């Protein structure tokens, strides 16, 4: 008898959250990486007041994407190393429920890093990043690349090259999400009238939806046998 779909997904999610609460392995490495990345960007780009206006949303998104790649690799490598991936395949649950559980977990971690970065960058760069619309773009953008990221990371942990392959596979596919998110954030931070940028969050919604459907359909082929 099959465990109901959402119950299975919830069990996987709860397991991920509980592990994380006890070890804080993922969030601490992602958070530290994100902080370092911001410092490196601010030196490398020599962000003065005017350059910041244009560049800061790029810095935000590149940092969130790279930090989430770090987290995705860890999150799926843990499943494989401890044999949990096989155990989940043996369990009488719908395969797609595994994807949903892992996706929500990875999404929450990426979103947490993004949310943490907003106040940090507000303080460090003296620009207000805590704005409702920017929050919405963050919620939509991280969802987009967490979706493709979870699918691709499940693939790459099963290959020989493992960690090094994920960024190569994921960055080009995540590009539509990142472009839309960066364009929207830049406009929001520069107080551009809403009519000029509202198309970007709309594109994000469409891209998110397409990726979600595609990845849900394709996931069962990632973890056969």
């Amino acid at each position, binding site marked *: 008898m099959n465990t109901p779909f959402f119950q299975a997904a919830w069990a996987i999610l709860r397991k991920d959250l509980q592990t994380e609460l006890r070890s804080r392995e993922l969030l601490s490495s992602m958070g530290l990486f994100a902080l370092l990345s911001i410092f490196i960007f601010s030196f490398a780009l020599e962000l003065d007041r005017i350059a910041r206006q244009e560049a800061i949303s790029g810095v935000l998104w590149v940092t969130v994407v790279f930090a989430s790649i770090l987290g995705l690799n860890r999150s799926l490598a843990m499943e494989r190393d401890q044999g949990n991936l096989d155990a989940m395949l043996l369990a009488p649950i719908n395969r797609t429920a595994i994807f949903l559980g892992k996706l929500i977990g990875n999404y929450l971690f990426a979103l947490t890093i993004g949310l943490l970065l907003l106040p940090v960058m507000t303080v460090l760069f003296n620009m207000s990043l805590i704005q409702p619309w920017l929050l919405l773009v963050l919620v939509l953008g991280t969802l987009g690349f967490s979706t493709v990221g979870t699918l*691709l990371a499940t693939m790459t942990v*099963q290959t020989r090259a493992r960690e090094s*392959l994920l960024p190569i*596979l994921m960055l*080009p*596919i995540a590009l539509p999400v990142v472009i839309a998110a960066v364009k929207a954030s830049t406009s929001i931070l520069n107080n551009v009238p809403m009519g000029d940028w509202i*198309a970007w969050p709309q*594109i994000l919604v469409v891209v998110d939806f397409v990726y979600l459907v595609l990845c849900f359909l394709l996931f069962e082929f990632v973890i056969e046998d």
Partner: protein
Amino acid sequence: MSAIGNLSSNPNQHARSGIAAWPPLLRILTLATIIAVAIGLYLGLFYSGTDIDQGQVQRLFYIHLSAFTGAFIAFCGTVLGGVQYLRTRNVQWDSIALAGAEVGLALSILNLVTGMIWARPIWNTWWTWDPRLTSAAIMCLTYAAYLMLRSGIENAEQRRRFASIYGILAITTVILTLMITRIRPDTIHPVVIGPSVQNPNAEGAFEFSERMSMTIGINSAIWSTLVPVTLMWHRVRLQNLIERVNALKAEVLNK
């Protein structure tokens, strides 16, 4: 499909007769492609007039656009091959997907290179970080990543399965490249096809004479049908031969 299937069904035959074992249809196609490409080049180089503003370099455009249409068809072949492989698990479909990715990559690199040579006199730079140029370059990198993914997996069945999945996802970068001049109006790349209003930022757009439009039409028709199909067929054949050699090797080693 049936003609491709025949190739592997009788392996002894082409082990003996080597290259002469090209199926008749492939021979005809290859010949037709060579002739058609030559005709296309003739039209582009001699028949269509010289552009008044841009001069001879404008003629590159006939290949530039045509190579992209060919790449697009080949990448669609990768999606089709991927979907069909996941459904039927017939290895031939995966060979088609692989052929599509390689042929498409070659054609899109041709597209980039001709574009760069054209841009040097017209835009006064080889490369600019224009949205469409960037997305076209990323499209190439995506398919390079596809090939990298394939080489990173030893288990043949898993390699085919993962490659199919990635080939399906990768089409998003091709669609992005097609649409980006519409969704990012700050591009300087001319929008040639479709009912869009000519972008005021575009640099190097040109007016078509009747002969020019005919040359474009014929060239892109050739490059979007004959060229990718012939090249992909040859690649699928090569893949079958590679697998045959591997099987023979395994047979010898196991004796």
